[in-house]
C-alpha cells in the first residue's frame, strides 16, 4: 500500500457517461420538477433503470467484487463503495432530488446489504435487475423519534400461530416511500425497511429492521410532504396497522440479547451510508461553485490563485476558500468509502465526512447565492434551488449535531450515556 490519489479507470469511465446523463436527463428538468412537486420524472427513472440493467447492476449499491477467475492474476483492491460514491456525486451534481429517486435500493437496499443474511440479500436485492424499475426505502424516523431513535414506538410482535411478525406504528419522512410502496404500473414490487421494537423494555437492544413488501395489507402511504428543496424526491408518511409480514423478513437476530445492541445493524448501515449522503451534498456544492466560477468568468473576473491573501479581492478569497472546503470534504468521503471497501472500521471517518460535507455544502451554496446577488436569488438560474436542495445534507442521515456527537464519542472514548 501507498498513499495514492489516481482515480481508478472504472470511476473515470463511469463519470464520463454519467455526466451526459446528469446534463441531459437531470439538469434540463431540474426547474420543472422543482416547480411541479409530486410529479414523477418517469423518463429519468426508466432511463436509469434500463441503463443500470444493461450494465448488470440494478441499483446504486456497491458493486460486488468479481471473484478472480485466474488465481495467479494479482487481485485488484475492491472499489465498490468508491465507485458508488463517485456515481452519486455525479448524479447529485445533475440534480440531487432526482438522484434520490434513482430506481434501485437506496437506503433500504443498503440496510439489507449491511444487516441481512446472504439469503435475505439474494431474495430482496434480485428484484432490482428485473424488467421494471423498482424502489426500496428506509423507515426509521417517527413523529416523536427523529435524532433520538431510541424513542421509536413502532412495534413488531410475533404472532405465534401464523409465525408472522405483526407491525404497528407510523413512520414519517420516508425518502422514496411512495415509490417503494404504492403500486404504480410503471414500477416493480418494492419494499421498505422498517425499524420497530420487538421488546420495548430492552430499549435500543430490542430494535430490529423488517423488510415490508409493497402490497402488504395494512401498510399505506398517508401523506406526501411539501418541502424547501429536493422537491422531486417524495417524502412519505407511512402507516402500519396490524401488518403481517413473514417471519424471515427480520434483519438480524429474532431474539433480544440484553447485553448486545440489536442496534448494531442500523449503525453498520449508517457507517456505510453517511459518506454516501455526504457526497450527494458535495455534488450540489460542486454544481453551485462551478456555476459561480462560470458567471465570474463571463464577467471577466479571473481568480488569481497563488497570490497571498493580502493581495486578493474578497471574491477571490471566497472562491479559493470554497475550493479548499469542497476538495477536502471530497477527500474525507473518499477515505471513508475506501475504508469501507477495505473492511476497515470507519465509524469515525464516516461521521467526520458527514459533519464536514453538511457544513461545506450549506456554506458553499449559501455563499454562491450571496456572491451572485440578484442572479443568485433569481429562479431564472439554479443557484437558489441548489441552496434549498443543499440544506437537507446537514439534516438527514444524522444531523450535523448528531454526527458531531458520534465523532466526539469516538475521539473521547465515551458511550452514548457519557455524552448525550
Amino acid at each position: 500500500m501507498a498513499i495514492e490519489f489516481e482515480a481508478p479507470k472504472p470511476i473515470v469511465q463511469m463519470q464520463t457517461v454519467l455526466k451526459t446523463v446528469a446534463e441531459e436527463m437531470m439538469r434540463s428538468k431540474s426547474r420543472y420538477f422543482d416547480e411541479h412537486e409530486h410529479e414523477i420524472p418517469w423518463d429519468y427513472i426508466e432511463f436509469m433503470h434500463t441503463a443500470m440493467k444493461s450494465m448488470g447492476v440494478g441499483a446504486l449499491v456497491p458493486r460486488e467484487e468479481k471473484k478472480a477467475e485466474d488465481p495467479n492474476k494479482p487481485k485488484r483492491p475492491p472499489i465498490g463503495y468508491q465507485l458508488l460514491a463517485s456515481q452519486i456525486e455525479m448524479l447529485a451534481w445533475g440534480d440531487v432530488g432526482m438522484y434520490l429517486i434513482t430506481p434501485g435500493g437506496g437506503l433500504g437496499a443498503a440496510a439489507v446489504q449491511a444487516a441481512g443474511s446472504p439469503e435475505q440479500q439474494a431474495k430482496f436485492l434480485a428484484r432490482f435487475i428485473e424488467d421494471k424499475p423498482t424502489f426500496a426505502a428506509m423507515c426509521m424516523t417517527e413523529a416523536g423519534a427523529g435524532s433520538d431513535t431510541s424513542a421509536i414506538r413502532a412495534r413488531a410482535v410475533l404472532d405465534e400461530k401464523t409465525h408472522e411478525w405483526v407491525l404497528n406504528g407510523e413512520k414519517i419522512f420516508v425518502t422514496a416511500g411512495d415509490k417503494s410502496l404504492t403500486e404504480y404500473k410503471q414500477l416493480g414490487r418494492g419494499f421498505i425497511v422498517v425499524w420497530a421494537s420487538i421488546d420495548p423494555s430492552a430499549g435500543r437492544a430490542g430494535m430490529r429492521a423488517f423488510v415490508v413488501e409493497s402490497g402488504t395489507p395494512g401498510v399505506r402511504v398517508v401523506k406526501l410532504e411539501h418541502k424547501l428543496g429536493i422537491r422531486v424526491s417524495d417524502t412519505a408518511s407511512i402507516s402500519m396497522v396490524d401488518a403481517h409480514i413473514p417471519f424471515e423478513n427480520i434483519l438480524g437476530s429474532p431474539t433480544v440479547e440484553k447485553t448486545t445492541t440489536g442496534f448494531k445493524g442500523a449503525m453498520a448501515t449508517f457507517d456505510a451510508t453517511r459518506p454516501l449522503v455526504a457526497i450527494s451534498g458535495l455534488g450540489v456544492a460542486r454544481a453551485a461553485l462551478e456555476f459561480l466560477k462560470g458567471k465570474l468568468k463571463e464577467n471577466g473576473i479571473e481568480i488569481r490563485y497563488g497570490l497571498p491573501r493580502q493581495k486578493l479581492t474578497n471574491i477571490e478569497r471566497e472562491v479559493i476558500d470554497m475550493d479548499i472546503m469542497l476538495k477536502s470534504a471530497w477527500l474525507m468521503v473518499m477515505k471513508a468509502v475506501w475504508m469501507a471497501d477495505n473492511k476497515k472500521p470507519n465509524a469515525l471517518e464516516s461521521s467526520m465526512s458527514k459533519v464536514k460535507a453538511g457544513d461545506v455544502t450549506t456554506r458553499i451554496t449559501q455563499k454562491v447565492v450571496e456572491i451572485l446577488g440578484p442572479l443568485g436569488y433569481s429562479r431564472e438560474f439554479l443557484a437558489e434551488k441548489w441552496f434549498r436542495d443543499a440544506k437537507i445534507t446537514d439534516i438527514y442521515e444524522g444531523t450535523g449535531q448528531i454526527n458531531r456527537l458520534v465523532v466526539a464519542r469516538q475521539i473521547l472514548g465515551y458511550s452514548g450515556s457519557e455524552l448525550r
Partner: protein
Amino acid sequence: MYSFEPTEEQHMLVDTVGKYASHDLRTISREAEESRELPKKLIGKGWELGLLQASIPESFGGFGERSAVTGVLAVEELAFGDLAGALAVMTPSLFALPVLLSGSEDQKKEYLPKIIEGDWQPYTAAFIENAFDFDANDLRTTAVLDGGEYVLNGEKACVPFAKEAEAILIYARCDGRTQGFIVPRSAAGLSVGDERERLMGLNALPLYRVKLENVKIPAAHRLGGAAGHAFEPVLASMRLASASAALGVARAAFEYSRDYAREREAFGVKIAQKQAVAFMLAEMRTEIEAMRLLVWQAAWKLDQEKEDAFNEAYLASTGAADMVMMVTDRAVQILGGHGYIREHPVEMWLRNGRGFAMLTGLAMI
C-alpha cells in the same frame, strides 16, 4: 487507485520521528521558547534521523530519493513535538532541497555531499521579506546581471541561523521571476543583523534579518546555472512543508486539549461531557483530517508531477493555515484561564499557529 495507507517504510519512519518528537522535542519545548535557545545536541539528534539524507540520491552522498509524501508525513510528526525544534532540525534542507530540485549538476556536486555527509551544519535560505503584502512571486529584493556577475540588493527577514551560516540561498527577483542565488556568508555587502528577530512565537529558533547591499556573486551561483530555474517546485515544497507543520502543531493542541477535557470537571461532570466542548473537539479533529488529506493529495501530485500540483499545494497551505489557527485557538479556549497561563503549552501553540499564515519559507520537504 485511491489509497490512504502509507507504506511500511513510511510507517516506520513516522514512528521513529514521532518518538524523537514526543520525547526529545516536546520535553524541551517550553524551556527553549522561554530561554530562546535550542540545545545543539538535540538538533544533532534530529539531524541523525536522516530525513534530508534520505531525500538525496546516493550519487550525492545520500541514501534515497526525495518524496513529498514521505516529507509531509515526517514534518507533521516533527512539528507535533515542537515547531521551533522541527524547523531547526530541517534548516539545512532550505539550502539542500532547492539545490537538489533545481540546481545545476555542478551545484549539486559541490554542495549536496558537503551538506549531508557530516553533522548538522548551518546552511540556510533567505526568502521572507518584511512587508505586509509579501508575495513569493513578487519579491522586493532584486538580482541584476552586470557583466559576469549578479548584483543583489534588498533586505530579508526571518533567516534561520544566518549568523553562523556557511552559505545562504537568497531568493530575489530577477527579470520578473523569483530565483535563488547561492551567496557565501562572507560575501561583501551581506550583513546579518546583530539582534535576532523578536516574533510572537518561535522564540527558540534563531532568526535574523539579512541585508544585501550591492552583493556581487559570480553568474554561476544562480540556482540552476545561467538559465536559472523554475521556482514553482520550490515554492510548492515550502508550502507543503509549512502546511504539514501546521498539521503537527494542530494535532498537538487537539490531543492536549482533548486529554485535558477528559480530566477537568465542572458542574459535576467532565467538561468533555458538555456538548459545547465535545463539539469543539469533534470539529477540531474533523478539520485536521480534512487538511491532512488535502496536504497528502497535493504532495502526491507533486511527486507524480501532476499539472495542478502547484495549485493544490497553494490551496493546502492556505487551508492548513486557517485550520491551525482555529484548532490552536480552541485548545486555549478548552483549557479556559489555565490555557492562558504559560505553564501549559497551548498558548505557545496558539502563537505558533498564527505564524503559519506568514512564515512559509522556513521549511521544505
